[in-house]
């Protein structure tokens, strides 16, 4: 095991001046070790809130407590200390960052009591991250899936955390500065005068993610376990807090995979969408499911992450890989639309069958307006051996248009001022043709 990077020690307040010479002479009284630590790890930014509990031996009167963190990625502006017991007797007077020393802070404490006092030291560190990812396995009939959620915690903070109570926060926090930048500053708060660091915006997605780290951490506790650890989930403000049962050892440089949830049978809908302006001339497959109890999911939101989708082939449990897609954050109760990319299994082909113009309007020698009439046949074919749902959207580039249906199926809904959607249920290996006539009123014909 490496030497701990975070060192806490007591100094006798012999000298008032905290210059380097005085510090060198001070006596070390106690070196209290960490009793417990709690890590609250964020994934929308490279930030972890660490809460360290240590029992310190106080002397009556002035105490000076030195905290050193060189080699770590701790943000010194976040350092805070709180007496957990006898808080009224203990007054934290100031936190001093001495000159020309990096990674060192000294708390000046006035204590009305002598003896052991538990303290909580909190700080932000960067370098610890977590990321959610999912494995989905579709049933052979593709009407349901087994969904397994995982999180991987990676520690590159420079500090080993043993027996850490680990909590993960799902949510997008606002940050002005990167914690890693604050941790690397020469002076904790910078220097006076112009040239203050500009606040950073758009921290979303700013994740320090390492390449896959093998999850080799076989902690003693885990060997004894007969079941995976549970993750307790709770909403706080606009965020979700996942608390992992028990404690974890997360050594510097290591990653760890934890099971977040398993939903054995989630009903899914297979939808194929066609919208040229959005997806180009291809049909895109979507897998949709609802994140709620009725659909066998939990009562919590799902953090964004990569979903790898497999299909059970029905042959002795062999799997076929369907595709992978990053999900967005899915609130409780929302329908997830997982875009699995272009598909050849369902085709949608719009064909222009007829074109004519009329109702020209003139001003002097110039044409100012006219109408364009088009007849389209949209051929929709399902090459799969199972029923599918197909949504075809058509956008019109003019504000004034009229649509008339001449064929079957003729039902459409208007999505917005210039978009209509046809929704079709196709049987296995089925085919349907949508026919419509559309009139576009161009130029001055568009102003009534």
């Amino acid at each position, binding site marked *: 095991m490496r030497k701990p990077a975070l060192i806490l020690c007591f100094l006798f307040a012999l000298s*008032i*001046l905290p210059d380097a010479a005085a510090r060198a002479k001070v006596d070390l009284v106690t070196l209290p070790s960490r009793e417990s630590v709690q890590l*609250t790890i964020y994934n929308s930014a490279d930030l972890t*809130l660490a*809460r360290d509990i240590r029992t310190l031996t106080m002397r009556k009167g002035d105490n000076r407590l030195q905290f050193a963190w060189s080699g770590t990625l701790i943000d010194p*502006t976040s350092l805070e200390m709180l007496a957990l017991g006898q808080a009224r007797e203990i007054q934290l007077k*100031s*936190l*001093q*960052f*001495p*000159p020309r020393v990096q990674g060192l802070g000294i708390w000046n404490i006035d204590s009305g009591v002598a003896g052991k006092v538990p303290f909580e030291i909190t700080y*932000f560190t960067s370098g610890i991250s977590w990321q959610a990812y999912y494995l989905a396995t579709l049933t052979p009939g593709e009407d349901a899936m087994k969904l397994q959620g995982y999180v991987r915690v990676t520690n590159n903070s420079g500090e080993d955390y043993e027996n850490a109570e680990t*909590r993960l*926060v799902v949510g*997008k*926090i*606002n*940050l*002005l500065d990167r914690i890693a930048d604050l941790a690397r500053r020469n*002076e904790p*708060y910078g*220097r*006076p*005068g112009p040239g203050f660091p500009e*606040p950073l915006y758009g921290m*979303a*997605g700013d994740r320090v993610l390492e390449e896959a780290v093998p999850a080799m951490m076989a902690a003693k506790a885990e060997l004894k376990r007969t079941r995976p650890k549970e993750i307790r989930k*709770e*909403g*706080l*403000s*606009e*965020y979700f*807090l996942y608390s992992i049962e028990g404690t974890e050892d997360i050594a510097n440089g290591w990653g760890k995979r934890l099971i977040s949830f398993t939903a054995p049978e989630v009903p899914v809908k297979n939808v194929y969408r066609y919208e040229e302006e959005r997806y180009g001339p291809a049909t895109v497959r979507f897998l949709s499911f609802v994140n709620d109890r009725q659909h066998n999911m939990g009562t919590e*939101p799902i953090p*964004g992450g990569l979903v790898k989708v497999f299909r059970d082939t029905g042959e002795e449990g062999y799997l076929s890989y369907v595709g992978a897609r*990053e999900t*967005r*954050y899915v*609130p*409780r*109760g*929302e329908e997830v*639309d997982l875009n699995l990319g272009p598909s050849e299994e369902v085709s949608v082909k719009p064909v222009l069958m007829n074109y004519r113009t009329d109702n020209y*309007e*003139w*001003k002097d020698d110039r044409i*100012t*307006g006219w109408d364009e009439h088009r007849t389209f046949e949209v051929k929709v074919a399902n090459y799969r051996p199972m029923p599918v749902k197909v949504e075809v959207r058509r956008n019109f580039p003019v*504000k*004034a248009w009229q649509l008339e249906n001449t064929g079957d199926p003729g039902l459409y809904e*208007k*999505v*917005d*001022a210039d978009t209509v959607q046809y929704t079709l249920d196709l049987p296995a290996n089925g085919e349907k043709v949508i026919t419509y006539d559309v009139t576009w009123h161009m130029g*001055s014909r*568009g*102003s*009534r």
Partner: protein
Amino acid sequence: MKKILFFTLAMLLTAGPSAEARTKLVALPDREAVTIRFDNPSATLVEEERVLTLQEGENLVDFSWRGVQIDPDSIRLSIMTHPDRVTLLSVSYPPGEAALVWRIHSDTAREEKVRISYLLSNIDRLITYKGVASKDEKTLDLEAFLVLRNFSGEDFERARIVLGQGDPFTDQTTHEETRQIHFLTARGIKIRKTFTWDASNKPWEPQRLETDVGIPVHYIIENSPKSGLGKDPLWDGKIRMFQDDGQKGTIFLGEDHVGITPVRSRMKIYIGDSRDVSVTQFKTKDERTDPRPSKHAVVLYDTEEEIRTEVRNFKDSPVTVDLIQQIPGEWEMKGSSMEYEKRDANTLVYRVDVPAGGTKEISFNYSRRNVRN
């Protein structure tokens, strides 16, 4: 590290202060009391008291500094004990030196206390805040810290530090040292939590995007006596917001830079974005009407437009979402499914209450007038 030097010189020469004259050291008076004043965020004022040993008649007092930046024109000398008997006659600046010489007249030989005031560069203060919201987000405990950054080149062993609010306190500060000092606690401040969706900068159909779209969330607190504040303005600085997690700990909610908040005004703290509230908006009608001067060469026209907005709340508690809508140019509201507040000529605010797990739909239609082609 003493960079500010101070000499009293015997008045031996009747000529003006020359380099030789100023080397004749009579006394090196110690600093007696130092006050560092941080009430102006753009400049730090140092005032120090010293006792001068004056002879009868004219005295030359030399004040010089090395390795520090003092605004020479800001240096003031006040006679403390016998202002009627001791007179400052003149101030001169020796050529090419960071120094000045005071010519002081005293009616008799005496020890005289003087106060020297000057603006010192590269020493300042920042304010940082820590807020801890209660688990139910109804109240907030606020703590404020002073961060004293001394890169001035000068050490102050014992200084009275004046912030311009609260009680002054005594502390030390050495060159290149940063010191964080707690100076304010206010507990149980009432919070108002807001969700804001602005049609001009948020996507209208977030479902169409591959990335998450959040709705900005703010806490609003008032700097007033009923909040346990209201004595002094709250200075600008960085605030880090936490929330009680109900498990004897906290989680970090987010940070913001808050501007100066005078008494009786509000501090708006941006926490982060909610992804459990979503807003989808469509323009369901967009038509041109009344083309002028004729429909053949239209230069001016009106429009009929309709907006439909759906607000969904996925949370298990109700929310209030402020929808900010912009209508450019001249316009007339034709119909609105709910009341709105007109913020300015082109900005409307719909305050929409959405129950837990619910959806609320609003729509409005308007006509824009005299749109130029």
